[in-house]
């Protein structure tokens, strides 16, 4: 792909510089701000934080003024680390369920006749275009007491007791899996579709049962897709705010909601920033895994092209 490297000319340099500057200003600099404010005291004045250093004045002052108070609070108050653990649990469960639903779906899509595949692909992508908020709202109408699910169960004579699913962990999981399923299906489909079917035929010729062929050929070869899909679901799921807020209850406190509450209700900006910094640290490992999966896939694509 990268043939002889041509010398970078002026327009070329501009092509790099403009988005670089934008991202540096509006993506990187904000993270430095978060770190800086996470290390300052809460104050009631507006903006509600007291910075410990101004400008570039003396690194020594800065280091002396570093205040780990907010991180100490996160460490000591069980509310915070329990929310982190709970978010990890919900994100992990969401990923597993999405994988359990998404793998058969992606496999069936990839096995479908070629002329169906384009339509099936559009059908998976289309819900992604509809508003996130609307998709979560739709589930409120289904799960609430005497909602559509209760009505359907009563009509079928299966249950006349309301299930009371809304504001439970089950409701949060349903909403999460529903919203993130396309992120799981798309990378899975991409790897499964590229899979060389003659390998399966070879396995069958050599006497492998379909199950054995799947476990020894298809599954290992689709692992990059599994990894990419899982990371694409797991990472944003940890910090999710809207779904646990609208579908969850008081005992489904995820860290995204804690950050939101610290910021908007308690107006404790430094603490909210410290929560964000710890959340970023939690995300480093899955982000690195995602990057590896992406590089692996890029290498594969290069080989095939």
């Amino acid at each position: 792909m990268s043939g002889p490297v041509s010398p970078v000319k002026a327009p070329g340099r501009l092509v790099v510089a403009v988005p670089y500057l934008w991202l540096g200003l509006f993506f990187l600099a904000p993270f430095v701000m978060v770190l800086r404010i996470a290390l300052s005291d809460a104050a009631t004045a507006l903006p509600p934080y007291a910075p410990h250093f101004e400008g570039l004045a003396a690194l020594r002052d800065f280091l002396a003024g570093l205040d780990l108070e907010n991180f100490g609070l996160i460490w000591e108050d069980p509310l915070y680390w329990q929310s982190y653990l709970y978010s990890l649990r919900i994100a992990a469960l969401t990923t597993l369920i999405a994988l359990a639903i998404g793998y058969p779906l992606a496999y069936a899509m990839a096995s479908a006749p070629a002329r169906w595949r384009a339509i099936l692909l559009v059908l998976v992508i289309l819900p992604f275009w509809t508003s996130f908020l609307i998709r979560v709202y739709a589930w409120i109408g289904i799960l609430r007491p005497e909602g559509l699910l209760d009505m359907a169960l009563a009509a079928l004579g299966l249950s006349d007791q309301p299930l009371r699913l809304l504001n439970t962990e089950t409701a949060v999981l349903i909403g999460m899996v529903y919203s993130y399923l396309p992120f799981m299906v798309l990378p899975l489909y991409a790897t499964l579709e590229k899979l060389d079917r003659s390998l399966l035929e070879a396995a069958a010729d050599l006497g492998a049962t379909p199950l054995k062929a799947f476990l020894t050929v298809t599954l290992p070869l689709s692992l990059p897709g599994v990894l990419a899909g899982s990371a694409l679901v797991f990472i944003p799921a940890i910090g999710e705010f809207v779904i646990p807020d609208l579908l969850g209850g008081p005992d489904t406190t995820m860290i995204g909601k804690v950050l939101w509450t610290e910021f908007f209700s308690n107006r404790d900006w430094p603490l909210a920033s410290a929560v964000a910094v710890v959340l970023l640290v939690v995300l480093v490992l899955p982000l690195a895994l995602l990057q590896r999966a992406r590089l692996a896939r890029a290498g594969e694509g290069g080989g095939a092209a």
Partner: protein
Amino acid sequence: MTRLGPGLILALVAGFAFLYLPILALIAYSFNASRLVTVWGGFSTHWYGTLLANEPLLSAAWLSLRLAFVSATLATALGTLAALALARQGRFRGRLLFTGMALAPLVMPEVITGLSLLLLFVAADVERGFWTVTIAHATFGLGFACIVVQARLVGFDRSLEEAARDLGATPLVTFWTVTLPLIAPAVAAAWLLAFTLSLDDLVIASFTTGPGATTLPMRLYSAVRLGVSPEINAACTILIGFVATVVIAASLLLKRRQALGA
């Protein structure tokens, strides 16, 4: 392997039922005459009429549309440049950081993106409102635009660009006359993606907005918190219809252009 067994057909049907039934139910109940959301009181467009009288919701929708238009245009321009940088500039200094910065917003939890941008705007003492949300959405949409355009740039025949250069075209002329027409479908798709992402965003907008700039998702969110109502169903149905129309029209247009171009 092009035959689908009953198991795979079941996987397809169940998977797509799960994806589509909730949205279809929501649309159906927007035409319910009864205010009781679960009781079917006959077909009615009553709730669409009450929407037209809902002044705060309408002005929020207008603001969201303008905001999505401007931020999507910015995101697409910057994302296309970023994609050109990644696909055409080979190894430049800081490429790894550049890639990371462009692609991180794709998976970064929105609460972090929103909070960090707000802290920047406060530190810079910028008045918050339309433009701060626009900048936030442009930054967030840039990564998505970049991926879409980059996929197209990697896929197409570079010898066309080289031919133009050999015939004496400057890089800028080559870009306008050869590269841009070839990647136009991807650029259009990138713009649409950035547009709907902006139209949809609640979290980042809530952090970075100021008084007087309440977006449609923010209005819907505060209404949804109060419970289900047929009026919200009607608003959601219009939004779904709008986005579906734009997406389908765009994909048809792109298909025709591709067919003509091929």
